[in-house]
């Protein structure tokens, strides 16, 4: 292990040889980690590497089977999250839950508001204290504003302020940027730097490697529950880090094959849904991967939903393989050869309580029946085939999909749709929340599909993914298509200019 220096400050929090098992599964094996005041420390690893278990151990949710947690060099035992909080450890989750009808100040001081005589809440003191916290963080948020309607980014700021109000010295941020836009990430990083300068220790988890390199000084890598390395990020490359995480050299992250586009497979003409998107026209050809970029809320997902038929459109038309689609009818879209991998795999992509097999079978109920009944043999062979092709890691094909990791769940969603043999595949945020190894697999799969003649429309907020995979990039801004950029001209600058409404 490398320390900043042997004579430097002592770690505020340290884990020594922590092990934790759940039944036969060894989630953590002899993991050690040191957090120093004034550092932002990355925790890297694929899905299932043990990051969540480690965080929960630090937060007092899990008690380790073996090993020690040291606070300021003294061994401590957390009996619950309250103990960890009292010790100055705070966890900021990806999607905070605030009381929507209470103000920011009331949320921060919930249950421990400053009091006046006979127990009345001192609103003025609450307000002042909150304003002070916001000043410390360098953000402008009105303490009296209700939490309802705050963006996820603002809600995270409120959570951070709350942590500070508990005098937290260690902040654990679990994928805080997953749902943020570019400018929100920049502001969050500004806050993190402020905290660091004030001497806080931050443990930062993100699947976006460029963020790790931007904000963190050191990184601890886990793989399959085991500690791999703790080291400074200076001098490391993204490839080095990926190699630590996956334990081998990763094939290219964006393995895009060159394909000559064929005939038009998806044609969207002047599609409008009042108040959501307006006059959207584009085509996707067989063999093409077309990226659909834009800020969150620009209307990309909404266009995909309308094209597939989950929402109705008010004007325009959609053709798949020359067949006009019926407004608001996913079943006719499927019959025409359209497939949609939706953005929310838990609510939209999968029936979480159903088996892997039945989830994959769900899209084939109409096409693979025998004598009007579900053909269970065909259902099983279809799901086994695709689970193998996509290398889904599962114990039994009859297990509920909720038992799988996020990346494997996403593969099941892909399998479910690829099994329909689509002509046109729309994927909405296909790699959100997925580890880098699985991400490369999904990209290779999309590239292969395009090479086999499938027309792919890829919606993504991950700009490197769009630039790395798309033959053409369509950009939406405030419900309108503002640019179509060929692969050769697509750069972060040109895409972001169109996405933010600035002239390219």
């Amino acid at each position, binding site marked *: 292990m490398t320390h900043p220096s042997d004579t430097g400050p002592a770690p505020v929090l340290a884990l020594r040889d922590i092990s934790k098992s759940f039944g036969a599964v060894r*989630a953590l094996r002899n993991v050690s980690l040191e957090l120093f005041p004034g550092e932002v420390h990355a925790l890297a690893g694929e899905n299932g590497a043990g990051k*969540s278990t480690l965080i929960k151990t630090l937060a007092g949710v899990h008690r380790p089977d073996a090993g020690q947690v040291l606070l300021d060099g003294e061994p401590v035992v957390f009996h619950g999250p309250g103990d960890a909080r009292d010790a100055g450890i705070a966890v900021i989750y990806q999607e905070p839950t605030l009381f929507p009808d209470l103000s920011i100040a009331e949320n921060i001081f919930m249950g421990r508001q400053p009091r006046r005589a006979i127990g009345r809440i001192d609103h003025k003191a609450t307000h002042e204290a909150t304003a002070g916290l916001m000043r410390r963080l360098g953000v402008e948020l009105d303490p009296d504003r209700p939490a309802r309607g705050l963006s996820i980014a603002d809600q995270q700021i409120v959570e951070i302020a709350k942590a500070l109000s508990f005098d937290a010295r260690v902040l654990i941020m679990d994928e805080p940027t997953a749902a943020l836009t570019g400018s929100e990430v920049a502001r969050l990083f500004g806050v993190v730097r402020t905290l660091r300068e004030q001497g806080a220790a931050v443990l930062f988890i993100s699947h976006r490697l460029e963020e790790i390199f931007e904000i963190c000084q050191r990184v601890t890598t886990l793989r399959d529950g085991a500690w791999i390395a703790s080291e400074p990020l200076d001098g490391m490359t993204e490839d080095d880090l990926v190699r630590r995480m996956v334990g081998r050299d990763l094939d290219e992250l964006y393995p895009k094959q060159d394909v000559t586009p064929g005939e038009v497979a998806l044609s969207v003409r002047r599609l409008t849904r009042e108040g959501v998107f307006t006059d959207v026209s584009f085509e996707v050809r067989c063999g093409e991967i077309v990226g659909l970029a834009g800020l969150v809320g620009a209307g990309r997902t909404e266009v995909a939903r309308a094209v597939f038929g989950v929402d109705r459109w008010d004007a325009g038309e959609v053709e798949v393989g020359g067949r006009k689609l019926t407004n608001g009818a996913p079943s006719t879209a499927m019959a025409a050869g359209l497939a949609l991998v939706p953005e929310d795999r838990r*609510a939209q992509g999968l029936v979480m*309580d159903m088996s892997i097999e039945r989830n994959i079978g769900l899209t084939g*109920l109409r096409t693979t029946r025998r004598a009007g009944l579900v053909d269970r043999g065909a259902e099983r062979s279809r799901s086994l085939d695709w689970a193998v092709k996509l290398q889904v890691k599962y114990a039994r094909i*009859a297990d*509920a999909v909720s038992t799988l990791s*996020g990346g494997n769940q996403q593969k099941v969603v892909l399998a479910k749709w690829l099994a329909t043999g689509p002509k046109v595949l729309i994927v909405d945020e296909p790699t959100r929340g997925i580890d880098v190894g699985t991400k490369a697999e999904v990209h290779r799969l999309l590239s292969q599909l395009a090479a086999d003649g499938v027309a792919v429309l890829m919606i993504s907020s991950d700009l490197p993914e769009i630039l790395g995979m798309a033959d053409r990039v369509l950009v939406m801004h405030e419900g309108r298509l503002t640019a179509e950029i060929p692969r050769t001209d697509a750069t972060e600058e040109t895409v972001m200019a169109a996405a933010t409404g600035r002239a390219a």
Partner: protein
Amino acid sequence: MPESLSRAVRWDTVVGALLVVVLLFSLGFVDGFGNSLNLSFLIGNTLPIALIALPMTLLVVAGEIDLSVASTAGLSGAVMGALWNQGMTIETIIPLCLVLGAVCGLVNGLLVTRLGLPSLAVTIGTLAAYRGIAQIVLGSDAVTDFPTQYLDFAAGRLGDTFLPQAFLPFLVLLAIAVVTLHATPFGRSLFAIGAAEEAARFAGIRVKRHKLILFVATGLMSALTGVFWALHYASARYDNATGLELSVVAAVLLGGIDFDGGKGTLGGAVAGVFLLGALQNVMSLVNVSAQSQIVVTGVLLVISVLGPRVARQIEVARAGRRAASAPVSKAPAPTS
């Protein structure tokens, strides 16, 4: 057995075993239970619950409910009596009653699927409305003079056995319901709709159409039950089958059908129906009053909602200890 049902299956088995225990106990210890006349009463009195429980099971699996079933049955019986008084032939009346039942179901279904209203509220409304119409149609009359061959069929037994003649048609309907729920794409879709309606929609399943069909089928079966009821008891009155919805819902939930949708088997539901029927029969034999029987049914309903849930929590707690290492992408709120 399919894994998505495995927890419910365990509950089914519990209910099935309980049914056997109650039957054996009653045969051994309850005077008059085992004679064939009583057994035929038991089955005959339980058939109305069983008939409506078939579509109700599918409806609850799909995440909806229909509380207007008893009123629809009452309306169907009342209309049957009124038309018979008008001099219409029974062969014309029965199909008309069935159509009426389907229309009652259609009204429920349209209110739920087109207007997006919760079925619990809608069908409490139509529970009152359909019963009110029944009273308007027939007043306080009781019509009893239906053709004897029909009365004999509805009350008669199969040869020397204790089985009612109507048991055979019930078996046919049961077979149709079992195949529909557990072997057809339609039935498979119902489980998906009940477990995750949005995901079902994204898989191209026509959620509203499925639900509408179920409401119509439920109305139809309720009307058929109303016809059977009037003939079985040789009495068509506006208040026939009052309160039957309580027994149907209690029996279905007792059979392990999850009130939140997405889980359960018809085998469990039918076991629940006959368990409830057997308990009601035994209570009558040992002179428990009708009012007290309703209390017992109500308590059973609460237990049947609680039972599978407690069983599942124990199961989840056990599984949780085994699989808590699975990566969690969304963690709960940290504080407060």
